[in-house]
């Protein structure tokens, strides 16, 4: 009885829904026309989401560059869905007839190939960051695939570990909070921690646990770790700042905030504030503002012929960018230039932060 009623009813509703859907579709179709630029190339940023601070800053960097260069800028968000990410880029290529520059943080490693191939076919210029398969190289797609940028996770993990050990006075036990097990960043940063531990035999790794990049998980985990190790915990190494801040709140609930130093990676505002109050020993950031702007700058300069990608050395095609360390020594200055005001970046200095070619 209920079912047949539902069927009849669903027919009635669906006609109205269809009309609504059609109207909504028409509106969406009309919108991109406003965004279309006449002949200057469109700058396109493709990122995973806007709900994390990292990519939110990335977008402001991209917009800052677009404003500086006087170009149209569009942000595509994949919402962690690879198919959507690639489809959106293809749609953008079709709309601009290939007259665009793409700066992409591919959702997943394999995504980089279809993205690069589609751009090369349409004649657009593309820069990828963080994720690409090992056998995909910019030099195989001259001149369209300009550069690929990464940040050395091993170096980051090692740098923050060394500062943590120094803050602890060179001895004692630490606990480590890792990121989502399968991600490259999590694996590399842990390698860096392991390397630092090997060089400091007086530091004992009490436990390594995974909080999946999230402050909420780190909060619960830290409470449990405090039960297991109690006062033996003299320092906390977190693979990102969000987990570090979750651990910090767990410490605060036990009146331990500021007594046990924490280190993290990313340089989110919470962590920068905590470095200022001394609750964090340091954080290191890849500077998403720079990533968002400079990725577009490199692609745009190649597109307008400022340089020929084919003639650039390998360390300009696939390189590690320079990470910025924020510790007690420079936090006030960093706060003034990056948090209170928008960072000033010389967008003409394309290769200033190259630290070397990516390890094969």
């Amino acid at each position: 009885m209920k079912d047949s009623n539902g069927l009849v009813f669903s027919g009635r509703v669906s006609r109205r829904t269809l009309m609504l859907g059609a109207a909504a579709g028409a509106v969406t179709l009309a919108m991109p026309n406003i965004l279309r630029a006449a002949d200057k190339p469109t700058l396109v940023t493709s990122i995973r989401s806007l709900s994390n601070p990292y990519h939110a800053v990335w977008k402001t960097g991209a917009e800052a560059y677009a404003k500086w260069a006087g170009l149209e800028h569009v942000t595509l968000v994949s919402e962690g869905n690879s198919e959507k990410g690639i489809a959106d880029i293809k749609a953008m290529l079709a709309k601009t007839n290939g007259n665009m520059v793409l700066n992409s943080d591919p959702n997943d490693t394999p995504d980089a190939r279809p993205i690069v191939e589609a751009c090369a076919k349409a004649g657009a210029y593309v820069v990828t960051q963080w994720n690409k398969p090992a056998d995909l190289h910019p030099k195989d797609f001259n001149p369209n695939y300009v550069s690929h940028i990464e940040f050395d996770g091993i170096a980051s993990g090692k740098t923050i570990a060394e500062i943590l050990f120094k803050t602890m006075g060179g001895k004692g036990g630490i606990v480590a909070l890792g990121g989502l097990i399968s991600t490259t960043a999590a694996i590399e940063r842990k390698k860096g921690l392991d390397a630092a531990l090997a060089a400091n035999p007086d530091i004992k790794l009490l436990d390594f646990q995974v909080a999946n990049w999230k402050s909420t998980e780190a909060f619960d985990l830290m409470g449990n770790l405090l039960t297991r190790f109690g006062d033996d915990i003299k320092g906390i190494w977190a693979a990102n700042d969000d987990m570090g801040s979750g651990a910090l709140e767990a410490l605060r609930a036990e009146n331990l905030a500021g007594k046990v130093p924490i280190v993290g990676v990313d340089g989110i505002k919470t962590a920068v504030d905590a470095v200022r109050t001394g609750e964090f020993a340091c954080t290191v950031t890849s500077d998403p503002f720079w990533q968002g702007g400079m990725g577009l700058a490199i692609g745009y300069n190649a597109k307008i012929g400022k340089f020929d990608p084919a003639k650039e050395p390998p360390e300009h095609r696939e390189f590690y960018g320079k990470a910025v360390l924020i510790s007690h020594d420079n936090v006030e200055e960093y706060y003034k230039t990056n948090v209170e005001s928008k960072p000033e970046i010389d967008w003409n200095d394309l290769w200033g932060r190259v630290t070397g070619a990516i390890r094969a």
Partner: protein
Amino acid sequence: MTIQTEPLKSVSDIERTTLMTFLSGRIASMLGGRRWRRLAPLAVLVVLCILITIANPNFIELRNLVRLANSAAVPLTLAMGLTFIILMGSIDLSVEGTLSVAAMVVVLLAANDSNGNDYGWWAVLAAVAAGTIMGLISGLVQTMLRIPSFMATLGMWFIGLGLSVYMLGGSAIRLNDASIRDLALHRFLGLPLAVWVAVGAFVLAAIIQYHTRLGRHILAIGGDEDVTKLSGVNVTRVRIAAFALAGFFFGIAGVLAAAQLGQSHAVIGDGRLFAAVTAVVVGGTALTGGEGGVVNTLIGVLIVTVLANGMILLGISPYIQQTVQGLMIIAAVALSLDRVRLKIVK
């Protein structure tokens, strides 16, 4: 306390059971049958606690019990709301969206590091109201547009998430109101205030379920909606009320989560839905509705929390923790539900 639906089922059900369910049914009846089943989640909890204590006596330290209570506070409050929905045989997927809206509202209206607002406890009130309204909308969408709760609340999840992403601008915003942060940092009788709030939520939920007409009607809808309707119950109104009630609890949980973490970002609810559903089901409330209740859920939440705490205390590698969790969920559900009586498994 719970409605006995057994007499309504026909005898032939037993003939239809497969060998496996027949066997597990046999084992259960050897152990005492239905009465034992009802106590199964409690038994699982007690056995877990004993095993963990043997392996690491730190477990029963007062400090650890306080931590356990503290990390159970948010999941318990969430699961209280969800229990009513699952009791009706529906599902509420908007947990994470509603929670993040409530956390966003409280942080943006109380003293924070992003705007000049400082409405103190009015912010908390507004956050709980926002949660209730989200639930109310879910209920209205489900009953008035006749959209299954699964899709209606899935929509509300994304609406809520999108709203908080937009309002927070994608970043994390700190909560600076000291009196709200005291929910997590101030202690009364040795327990953080958040735990007392969660206990209050539990008592409220128990009163609603066992001593009000709404609670009995929710259970009746889960048992058999058609019969309930024929008995003169206004099913639509009960459904809307239940979803609003769930939103109310999610709103409180959002405030607690923001107070604990001292900040709000759009993904503050990540993973909470799965944890809440797990707790409700592990506690012995059937996803088909009509069976279980808030007391079951209390035990379910404790099982999940104790398990997470215990795995760290036992030093189980993070690489296999999820596997252990999965095994425990299957074991707990297999023990607590009477498979023999299930006509269909889907």
